[in-house]
């Protein structure tokens, strides 16, 4: 199983990979060596205790062949009714310029990794593989070794980008049996402002493939970034994602995550408040049905004083779906005046649904405010009766109340078109069990 990925690496290295700069070849070689040593994690590993990736390890996924043929109409459901926004589209792992839109705003650069390596080799050497350590997990190793292309988003100092940048990683019905390794690098210049969304979507709910994504975000001093992540993979597919954000002084990171696809889906979101007076707001929603397993691990590193983090993750689980939430907050001895709050709330709509939630706060400073709370519950029967007593049928009431529970997170999305599109997607999905 492991060897097949090593062979994929060797084939790629001999092919297009030979053109890569030496530093990148070194990183990739180190990454594949690391993966060869580690192999896939098992549930004996604390980080993967509730999430068995055996179906992925045994899956025999191969490198993509020719991508499926897609039109803009196929993508329409995912574009927030704004097909004109700057957009990079990857179909079955391959960049498709005909479906993409180049940005027009001054101060914003959106290119493929290949283009960025040619145009700005120093920038790439400074950032690529420096924020997400290649050996962070076996999956980040594999992504680093095998990612052949991806996106680089950059804002120049002081620029204020008014339109969201959309990165779309779509799998067609032809994606059966393949693995893709999407890779994203974001460098937000000093005092710049950027909104961006990564979408991982599928055109077919039965396609069995694996997405292994990595995103690195570097925020320079005073920058503001809203970073969305929409995971609507096929419910027969697998999704592993790892995002790491490095925040410089006075930066403000705001993320939202919607995870509702995948037979097994795992996302790690790590942010390092690496300078004083930085802020991170993390909002997330996971929705599972059938036998889905949706796992979120977040880590907030409070390294420096006077930083604030605020995290709310909510889940709605139906049928036999299984949710996992692990929220780590590390506060170093230097990080005085830290203000951190973490909330995880899960709504279980059936007796067979379950969630494993674990807050994990490690605090080494004494003058801090750190709180966490986790709740697990069912719909309140009095609320349902209240709706029904106004003429709203039980099924509609259940959906209304479930959506209201989820909307608290969705309504934190600052872009109105994205917020209303996500509210619609979630409303359509809720109350539809498998």
């Amino acid at each position: 199983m492991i060897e097949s990925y090593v062979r994929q690496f060797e084939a790629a290295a001999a092919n297009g990979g030979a053109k890569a700069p030496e530093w990148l070849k070194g990183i990739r070689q180190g990454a594949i060596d690391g993966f060869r040593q580690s192999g896939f994690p098992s549930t004996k590993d604390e980080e993967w205790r509730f999430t068995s990736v055996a179906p992925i390890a045994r899956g025999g996924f191969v490198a993509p062949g020719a991508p499926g043929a897609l039109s803009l109409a196929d993508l329409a459901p995912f574009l927030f009714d704004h097909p004109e926004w700057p957009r990079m589209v990857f179909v079955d792992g391959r960049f498709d310029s005909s479906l993409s839109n180049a940005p027009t705003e001054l101060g914003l650069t959106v290119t493929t990794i290949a283009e960025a390596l040619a145009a700005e080799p120093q920038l790439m050497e400074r950032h690529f593989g420096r924020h997400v350590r290649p050996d962070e997990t076996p999956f980040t190793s594999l992504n680093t070794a095998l990612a052949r292309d991806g996106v680089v988003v950059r804002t120049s100092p002081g620029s204020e980008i008014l339109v969201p940048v959309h990165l779309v990683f779509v799998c067609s019905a032809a994606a059966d049996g393949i693995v893709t390794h999407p890779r994203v690098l974001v460098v937000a210049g000093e005092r710049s402002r950027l909104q961006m969304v990564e979408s991982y979507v599928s055109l077919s709910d039965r396609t069995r493939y694996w997405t292994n994504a990595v995103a690195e975000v570097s925020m320079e001093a005073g920058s503001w970034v809203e970073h969305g992540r929409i995971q609507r993979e096929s419910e027969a597919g697998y999704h592993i994602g790892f995002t790491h954000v490095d925040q410089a002084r006075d930066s403000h990171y705001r993320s939202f995550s919607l995870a509702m696809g995948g037979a097994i889906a795992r996302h790690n979101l790590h942010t390092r408040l690496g300078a004083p007076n930085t802020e991170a707001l993390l909002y997330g929603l996971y929705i599972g049905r059938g036998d889905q397993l949706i796992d979120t691990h977040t880590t907030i590193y409070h390294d420096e004083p006077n930083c604030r983090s605020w995290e709310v993750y909510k889940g709605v689980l139906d049928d036999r779906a299984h949710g996992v939430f692990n929220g780590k907050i590390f506060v170093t001895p230097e990080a005085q005046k830290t203000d951190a709050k973490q909330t995880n709330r899960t709504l279980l709509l059936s007796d067979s649904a379950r969630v494993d939630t674990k807050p994990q706060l490690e605090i080494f400073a004494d003058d801090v405010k750190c709180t966490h709370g986790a709740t697990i519950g069912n719909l309140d029967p009095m609320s349902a009766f209240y709706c029904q007593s106004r003429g709203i049928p039980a099924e509609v009431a259940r959906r209304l109340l479930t959506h209201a529970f989820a909307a608290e997170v969705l309504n934190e999305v600052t872009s109105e078109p994205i917020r209303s599109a996500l509210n619609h997607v979630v409303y359509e999905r809720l109350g539809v069990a498998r």
Partner: protein
Amino acid sequence: MAPLLEIKNLRAGVAGKEILKGINLVVNAGEVHAIMGPNGSGKSTLAQVVAGHPAYEVTGGEILFGGADLSELEPEERAQAGVFLAFQYPVEIPGVTNAYFLRAAYNELRKSRGLEEMDPIDFIDLLEEKLKLVEWGPDIMQRAVNAGFSGGEKKRNEILQMAVLEPKLALLDETDSGLDIDALRIVANGVNALKRPDNAYVVVTHYQRLLNHIVPDFVHVLADGQIIKSGGKALALELEAKGYEWLTGVAEAAT
């Protein structure tokens, strides 16, 4: 013509404990009935059983609404038929605006009557008029349903919902509890403005105070799950003066 509401020997309870022990009550269109009684007598249970609260089990008797049996209907079907319960403790629904909730309810009622749904613009016009009844501006509609509302605001919101949904039978469950005098006046004015010859009110209350504002045609005293005395408006004043003991004493002596 059948009475609007006819309750015959109704017995109901919760978890095996009988609370209503044979209630008989007839309410005709155009009437206001007050149900009074000491705490724990079953007043609120009666209102909730008529509205279809799922926690209660009906163990005997009948609830006829316009001559048709209500007891097998879901709460939403009762609402669609024209029953409205103003809750003693209105439920907070964070994440749903008052505007959305009310329009959803209003349209469900319309759908059940074979009418087209009303679009948001027309609904705003309709609301504007109803909001005046409870002396509210439009801002309240963008707040989440009852979330963070004061006790008085919650009760006003119940009256607003009633004004929009225009029920045939409104059950007001202790609507006066927790109200200051201004809120009480607003709530009572709202109810009085909505009174019509073709609708009726059943006002459940512990105190006579509300009945100074909403004048009942009939007053019933409930004790230990039975109506032990019925009379006109004067009965409420008598209860205010003497308390309930003289009546419950009578009831005990009678059994």
